[in-house]
């Protein structure tokens, strides 16, 4: 059978064919053009963090969309290039052959030489913050990866024997190698730092009978924030909450600042990257946020106590004034050093000046958002077609993995209010 030759459709002139502009997608077939709008950009909440690779300095940095605490913008330390000040030309010194006043001893009128300086800049200028990382996963010390990254190939660190196992003859596992398909993981915490007043406690023991200590005097004093400290955001390999109080060392001084994690930047390596490698531009950044909304902050007032149930046998409490600061002297009885320390710790904890960050949501003391219902999962194949069913299940699992997010969905999560501030 002879078929007629295919008729080629004439090429339409280049200019007559429409093109896709910004925000659109164009599909063309023989019959029509099909335009569709591309998805809109997602709204970026306060404290939104974006990590990027600085190829010139070979450094990962992060920028944080401005968030505010009581209306004030935090500062962030960032690296800036020095801008040289133009120098006046005094001519050439005939004795040395060099320009006049070119010797370093003349300080060039205070101009900066080439190089960089670290300055503190308000967050609304989006200063890039240098990141420092800790290891998670196979090349870490007993830090297993979060489930989100375990599904993406980050393996658990090798088991190290316990002390009992070492005594039984086991040895440390120093040469362990991961299974094929391992990815490395690094993490960096960005932390919000708020200076504040804090409480300090000094304990002295009075002379007692031969059977034990009879009287203890505890002096509570308010210490001010460090005058050089300020509201800031900084990066650290791992955020460790300030301990401050260490009763075992006799140290009863609170930290004079409050800190809270803004976000955590994770870097995921390509497959089978060598252990202990430093992250570079081939790694993929992920960000998990802890803060999503602007914050209010307040700390409780230092109140003068006249009785306190935290300590038994309170004999007296007297307000002392010295050096412009107020202190309270508390006298109580104690039968042992341990009891004295515990009582002092109880008083300090009960009157702690630690502040609270909260999100003003209009919900009063309850600032939890209503729970959102999860989207319905699509059907995963059915019927007697086993291959089709397995394929549908694999596709659904891949869809769920792609759709999984580190952050909750809008309206995200808020910082709860501490109802004790209402009293």
């Amino acid at each position: 059978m002879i078929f007629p030759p295919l008729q080629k459709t004439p090429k339409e002139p280049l200019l007559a064919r429409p093109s896709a502009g910004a925000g659109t997608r164009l599909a063309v077939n023989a019959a029509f053009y099909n335009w569709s709008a591309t998805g809109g950009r997602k709204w970026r909440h306060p404290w939104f963090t974006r990590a990027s690779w600085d190829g010139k300095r070979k450094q990962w940095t992060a920028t944080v969309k401005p968030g505010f605490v009581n209306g004030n913008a935090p500062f962030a330390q960032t690296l800036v290039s020095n801008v040289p000040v133009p120098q006046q030309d005094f001519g050439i010194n005939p004795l040395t052959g060099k320009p006049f006043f070119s010797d370093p001893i003349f300080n060039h009128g205070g101009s900066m030489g080439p190089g960089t300086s670290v300055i503190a800049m308000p967050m609304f200028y989006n200063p890039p913050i240098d990141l420092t990382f800790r290891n998670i996963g196979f090349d870490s010390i007993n830090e297993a990866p979060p489930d989100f990254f375990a599904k993406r190939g980050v393996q658990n660190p090798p088991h190290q024997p316990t002390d009992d196992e070492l005594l039984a003859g086991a040895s440390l596992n120093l040469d362990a190698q991961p299974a094929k398909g391992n990815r490395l993981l690094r993490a960096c915490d960005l932390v919000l730092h708020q200076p504040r007043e804090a409480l300090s406690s000094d304990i002295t023991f009075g002379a007692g009978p031969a059977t034990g200590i009879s009287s203890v005097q505890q002096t509570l004093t308010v210490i001010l924030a460090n005058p050089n400290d300020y509201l800031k955001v900084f990066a650290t390999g791992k955020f460790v909450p300030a301990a401050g109080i260490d009763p075992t060392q006799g140290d009863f001084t609170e930290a004079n600042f409050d800190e809270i994690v803004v976000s955590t930047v994770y870097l995921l390596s390509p497959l089978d990257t060598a252990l202990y490698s430093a992250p570079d531009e081939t790694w993929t950044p992920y960000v998990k946020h802890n803060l999503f909304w602007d914050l209010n902050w307040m700390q409780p007032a230092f109140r003068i106590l006249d009785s306190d149930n935290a300590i038994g046998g309170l004999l007296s409490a007297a307000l002392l004034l010295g050096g412009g600061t107020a202190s309270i002297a508390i006298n109580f009885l104690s039968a042992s050093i341990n009891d004295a320390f515990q009582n002092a710790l109880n008083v300090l904890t009960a009157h702690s000046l630690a502040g609270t960050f909260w999100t003003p949501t209009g919900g009063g003391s309850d600032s939890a958002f209503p729970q959102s219902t999860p989207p319905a999962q699509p059907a995963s194949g059915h019927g007697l077609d086993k291959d089709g069913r397995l394929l549908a299940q694999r596709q659904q699992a891949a869809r769920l993995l792609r759709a999984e997010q580190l952050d909750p969905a809008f309206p995200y999560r808020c910082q709860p209010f501490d109802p004790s501030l209402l009293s």
Partner: protein
Amino acid sequence: MGVAVSVTPGGGGFSHPWRPALGQKSLQLSLGLLNGFTPMITTADGVVSMDPGKGPAPALELKAKDIDPDTQQSWACLEVTANADGSVDKHSLVVIVHRSSPTSIDPKTGRQPLALILWQKGAPVRCLPQCWFNLKYYRVDPPPGGGIVKHLFL
């Protein structure tokens, strides 16, 4: 030459209470509520209500003399002077004002910043929203032994 079709992508915005829009010498704020009540706002024509039923949306007047000269910043703030018992009702003074500081030192007045305004050479150049939800106000009076009044915006 030719045809190109462009579309402004959807999303990217969040229509919330107290949403600011900066003008030459004024700041437009979308309606927000405090304890369910509509606040007043300081405009060039005086203090007026933000009630949408009472005419076009009023704008906060911005004056260069009300900014912090060191930082070149100012704030649009919601100031609340509660009743004697600490409650807020339609008779309480709830007004949006332009201030050089986001916090108040007046013990009778609570202040919540709504937007930060950055200035340059005597003109406002940028504003940043700082409040995203309607607000609830509580005043906590000091105990009988003395202390400070706490103005809480939750």
